[in-house]
């Protein structure tokens, strides 16, 4: 499947519904979390941080099987099948996957964070594509992207910081008006 086809199939709501159907504990992070917070950016994938408990990894494996998840690979555009088992998911800190609903990245330990419990503290419950999910705070998204220090993150950081600043100003104005 080409990149364009992956993007054409990108339906984050379907991915979230699969996770919810199996009661997976996770926080939406990355660009979708930033977009939900009001950042005017685009993305072609969904990033989530799942909890790492054994029970949660088993639920996560079920959801990923429902989504026909495969390993994402430049050299194999159709994706590479892999054993979607809790034991397998426990062996890495991150997984970059393609699914029938588009690309999803599992980041158990996003840079600059301590993972699910850390991100859950500042997360908000938001409705996305008809599903109410936990979404990481924009400040945490920025913290992680600063720590990751990748070129694409560096390019996004100014607009994310600006969004956070305007959100805070707007919040203060709203607070003083009420």
């Amino acid at each position, binding site marked *: 499947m*080409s*990149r*364009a*086809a992956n*993007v*054409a199939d*990108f*339906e*984050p709501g379907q991915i979230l519904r699969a996770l919810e159907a199996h009661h997976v504990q996770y926080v939406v992070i990355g660009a*979708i979390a930033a*977009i*939900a*917070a*009001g*950042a*005017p*950016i*685009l*993305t*072609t994938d969904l990033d989530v941080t799942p909890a790492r408990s054994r029970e949660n990894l088993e639920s996560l494996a079920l959801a990923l099987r429902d989504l026909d998840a495969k390993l994402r690979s*430049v*050299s194999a555009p159709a994706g590479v099948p892999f054993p979607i088992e809790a034991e397998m998911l426990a062996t890495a800190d991150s997984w970059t996957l393609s699914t029938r609903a588009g690309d999803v990245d599992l980041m158990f330990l996003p840079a600059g964070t301590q993972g699910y419990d850390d991100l859950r503290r500042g997360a908000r419950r*938001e*409705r*996305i*594509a*008809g599903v109410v999910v936990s*979404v990481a705070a924009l400040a945490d998204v920025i913290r992680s992207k600063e720590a990751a220090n990748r*070129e*694409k993150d560096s*390019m*996004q950081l100014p*607009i994310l910081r*600006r*969004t956070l600043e*305007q*959100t805070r100003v*707007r919040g203060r104005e709203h607070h003083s008006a009420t």
Partner: protein
Amino acid sequence: MVSGDLLHEARLRAGLTQAELAKRAGTPRSQISRYERADVLPSLETLRRLIRSCGLDLSFRLFNADLEEHDATLIAQVQSLTAEERVDRAVRAVKHVYRRE
């Protein structure tokens, strides 16, 4: 910088010859050469795929000359929406950008 320059720079940064990039991307070497010379303009999707084959990525933003004001306006517009509307709008926009060739 035009797309040919971008591709050329990405290939050099990756330390690849045109033949090596051609093999990695599954694109004829002669076509890579045409892209780099700007004899042929690749689509955005093709350019991004080739740059990804170099281990790099291509990102893009729309902006006005007055970037600060533009960003502030854009953020204010987006913030007038709900979280669900923001994500829906972004997903529709990215699909539009990546429309199948």
